[in-house]
């Protein structure tokens, strides 16, 4: 057993590792992270997670629900630390797993991965308390500076892989969204709805539809600049990919020219968009290896929120911006994205799709701050098996995919249970990658040991 495996075992038991080991770990992690671009490319299948905030036992529950590392390929969208009791154990475990399984664990930076924020919201206090000095906090903050700012998920399928649960699932090819509980039981399924097809019940026009956005039903964008429709999805896949470069790169022919995105690419970022960033490539140009600035593109990516507004708005947080549906749709179109996945905001149901499913918020800290009563979610994107065959596969399932040729015509509008996705959202779904949300609750409390000692704060000496 290597030192690293030992550290992982110790952290899984929720016991901090010695300061010297933290130092070494952080050093290794920096060496690894420095090689990553600002926008990491991740290939499906991948499980995307939102804020953790030091809720270690809930992180363990997340791994139980989503599968363990390295069996499951994870992407965490930041905010590992602050507020909770176990920021240290949570972050160090994730970091250990990153170092141990670098290709199965992607960590991007949240607004809390910052010196200034951690001094205000708890992580600094926690380190000082658990180690008696700020050294470990300092090591961790140095790692924060190297975390990527975003990730692009390629190769996501627009059909779901089996959920692993034996329940009758009907025709999976028709399912765009599936919501499972922590035991893998399907709570609800939402069939893919053809864009522009006859309106089903409750369908209403999407707000702020981008002029460039939706294309007609099933017609591929075929070589428009950037290579895809706003929510490229099924339409963009007709006839196999026309864009061959990684979406968001604006390039073609890189990466062997064979990465297609029948379901469009997914951009993962902690907060959201920035008025200074119209192309994903511009994120790649930032100098990220620094404390999160108070303004500017890097700040916005970590701080902004989508909102029901047109264009851009001032953020009530005092950092970043609010951005509306029009902004998201134009951005997705220009960057050949089908979806933006982000975190950063508490959602009572664990996830929330907005703006005709052009953006989703994923939240992974159940019963946030011990008092919010929310559930958490993770988002699974399946790998596309549509004949490109270049993606690593984590399961042997075949004959499930339609090769991206689904065309979106086989959905059954209005059928299926209505879970937390509201009708208005659902009614205007566009083909994107098929999405499985696994919703889970806070870990049981009885599994937690109680501290033997009550250290006395200096004020009370």
């Amino acid at each position: 057993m290597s030192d690293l495996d030992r550290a992982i075992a110790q952290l899984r038991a929720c016991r901090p590792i010695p300061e010297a080991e933290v130092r070494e770990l952080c050093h290794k992690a920096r060496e690894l992270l420095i090689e990553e671009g600002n926008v990491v490319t991740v290939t499906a299948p991948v499980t995307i997670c939102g804020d953790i905030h030091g809720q270690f036992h809930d992180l363990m529950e997340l791994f139980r629900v989503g599968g363990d590392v390295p069996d499951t390929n994870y992407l965490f969208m930041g905010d590992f630390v602050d507020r909770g009791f176990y920021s240290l154990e949570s972050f160090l475990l994730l970091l250990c797993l990153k170092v141990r399984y670098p290709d199965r664990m992607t960590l991007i930076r949240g607004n809390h991965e910052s010196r200034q924020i951690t001094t205000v919201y708890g992580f600094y206090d926690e380190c000082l308390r658990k180690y008696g000095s700020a050294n470990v906090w300092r090591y961790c903050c140095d790692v924060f500076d190297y975390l990527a700012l975003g990730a692009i998920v390629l190769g996501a399928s627009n059909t779901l892989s089996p959920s692993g649960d034996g329940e009758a699932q009907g025709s999976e090819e028709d399912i765009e969204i599936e919501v499972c509980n922590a035991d893998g039981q399907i709570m609800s399924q939402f069939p893919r709805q053809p864009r522009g097809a006859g309106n089903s019940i409750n369908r209403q026009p999407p707000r702020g539809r981008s002029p460039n956005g939706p294309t007609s039903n099933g017609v591929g964008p075929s070589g428009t600049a950037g290579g895809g429709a706003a929510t490229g999805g099924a339409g963009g896949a007709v006839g196999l990919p026309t864009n061959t470069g990684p979406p968001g790169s604006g390039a073609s022919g890189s990466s062997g020219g064979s990465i297609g995105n029948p379901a469009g690419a997914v951009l993962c970022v902690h907060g959201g968009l920035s008025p200074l960033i119209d192309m994903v490539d511009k994120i790649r140009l930032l100098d990220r290896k620094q404390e999160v600035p108070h303004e500017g593109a890097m700040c916005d990516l970590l701080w902004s929120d989508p909102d029901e507004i047109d264009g851009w708005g001032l953020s009530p947080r005092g950092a970043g911006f609010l951005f509306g549906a029009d902004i998201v749709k134009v951005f997705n179109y220009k960057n050949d994205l089908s979806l933006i996945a982000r975190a950063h905001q508490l959602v009572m149901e664990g996830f929330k799709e907005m703006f005709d499913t052009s953006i989703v918020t994923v939240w992974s800290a159940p019963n946030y701050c011990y008092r919010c009563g929310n559930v958490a979610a993770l988002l699974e994107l399946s790998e596309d098996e549509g004949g490109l065959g270049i993606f690593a596969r984590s399961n042997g399932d075949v004959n499930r995919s339609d090769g991206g040729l689904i065309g979106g015509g086989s959905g059954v509008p209005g059928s299926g249970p209505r879970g937390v996705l509201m009708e208005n959202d659902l009614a205007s779904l566009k083909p994107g990658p098929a999405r499985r949300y696994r919703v889970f609750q806070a870990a049981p409390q009885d599994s937690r040991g109680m501290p033997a000692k009550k250290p006395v704060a200096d004020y009370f000496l």
Partner: protein
Amino acid sequence: MDPPPRQPAPSPSPFPRLEVLDRSAAHTFARPAKLINDGPDVAHFLTSKAYRDIGTFVMQLNRALCPRSKTQPTDSAGIESFTLGAGRERDPEPVARLRQLLQRVEAFVDEAPPDPGPRRFGNVSFRTWHTLLDQRADALLREFLPRRVLEFPSTSAGAIAAELRAGEEGGEEQGEAGPLDEVKAYFLGSFGSAQRLDYGTGHELSFLAFLGCLWKLGAFESEAADSERALEDVERSIVLGVMEPYLQVIRRLILTYTLEPAGSHGVWGLDDHSFLPYIFGSAQLTRPIGEGSGEAMPLEGSLPAAPRPADVAKADAAFDRLRRDNMYFSAVGFIRDVKTGPFWEHSPILFDVSGIRDGWGKINKGMVKMFNAEVLSKFPVVQHFRFGALFSWDQDPDAPAPAQSVHMANQPASAIATPPAAAPPPVAAAAGAAGIAAPWAQATRMPPGTGGGPGIPYSKAPWASRGVGGGAGGSSAVPPLPRGGPPDTGPLPPTSFPKGVPGKANNQFAVTKAPWAKD
């Protein structure tokens, strides 16, 4: 017996009280203004008369709550302690009127029911509630404050007349300020932020100042209340008969409108919203001092038969009784009401305090120190405090030299990540303290070379290095242990909720706001 004064004692009494203004001379009032706009302003605040007066008032009330022994040596039969609930009918009239005022204010909740629709954060109906408060504050204060406050002699000739022209709107902001202008500012600042939909220790501080204003204006004076014992009775009734009811109103507001903590250290803060009940509640349980003895507040020891500090961490029948008697347990009870999970995990600081073996006196002393460091000395909290004639921004002539703490002196602004690497774990010694000083000062700065960005407000916020006003017996240096008086930062919380959110009460807490945001 008294703690040796480090400065030439400015006050003849070792236990000073807030000065009641002389009514024989007209007093000049001012509309309280926000004057703490930047980090260094906090340093000035810590040498201001307002800071002195806040400290004096807290310590004055604190000592009044300490149990009294009528016999020497102490035997339990002769001990009088002071609990919530009992004896409120004996409260002096001004106190009872203030309680009625609070009842009125609380009743606004019925006029501003929480918005049932999908909510993005703290319930927007709180803004309606606060608007009612704003609109009615003048009339309410006129109705419930003693005339001797409203008619306090003022140099502004028109002021009194203006005060008495109840109900005439609009003219007040122009003319010279009267006593009501001062008092009202603190009153209105006491009930959370309508803009940010949050509540924190800064608002609690404002209510304390509201009471302090009333004290200074003689609201609680009477012919009967001139003996030491009578004064102490009044002080106790202020805390148990006004402060606790105020906290109950606040708790109702927090629950009704899901008000957020105004900035939060997460689990590493003392409490998401409050501080003062931990001071006064621990005082209620401290070892008794002799009635009229002039004894200082004990720095350790408990009232005989007091609950053990460890009982705080237990949820049992005894706890339910204690929370009706004691402000500390009342506050912890509210935490238990709103939080689920192990107490030691969601409230580790209170849990640790529950392990203190030297009694409630020790806890009380620590809470006072912590209040000084985590509330009064923190920019995000005190930036909202307002200064007028009663709580004055003027320099306190007796204040120690500006508190250039070791934390400031030893830490160059650029030293973001370079406090002494070998600094030992927390020790009280100054040198060690420098090493482990919370990095607010430096860490809140942007790293060199990242270019502009607004100045970070509290980048230089000092840790006070003197005790809270008179007789605290506090140590000279506030230990830099990081604890959370919740910083009251940043504006509105955000978030979009899924449409059709189930009507769960606490569905929007703790949205992170930029600490550098000013408002």
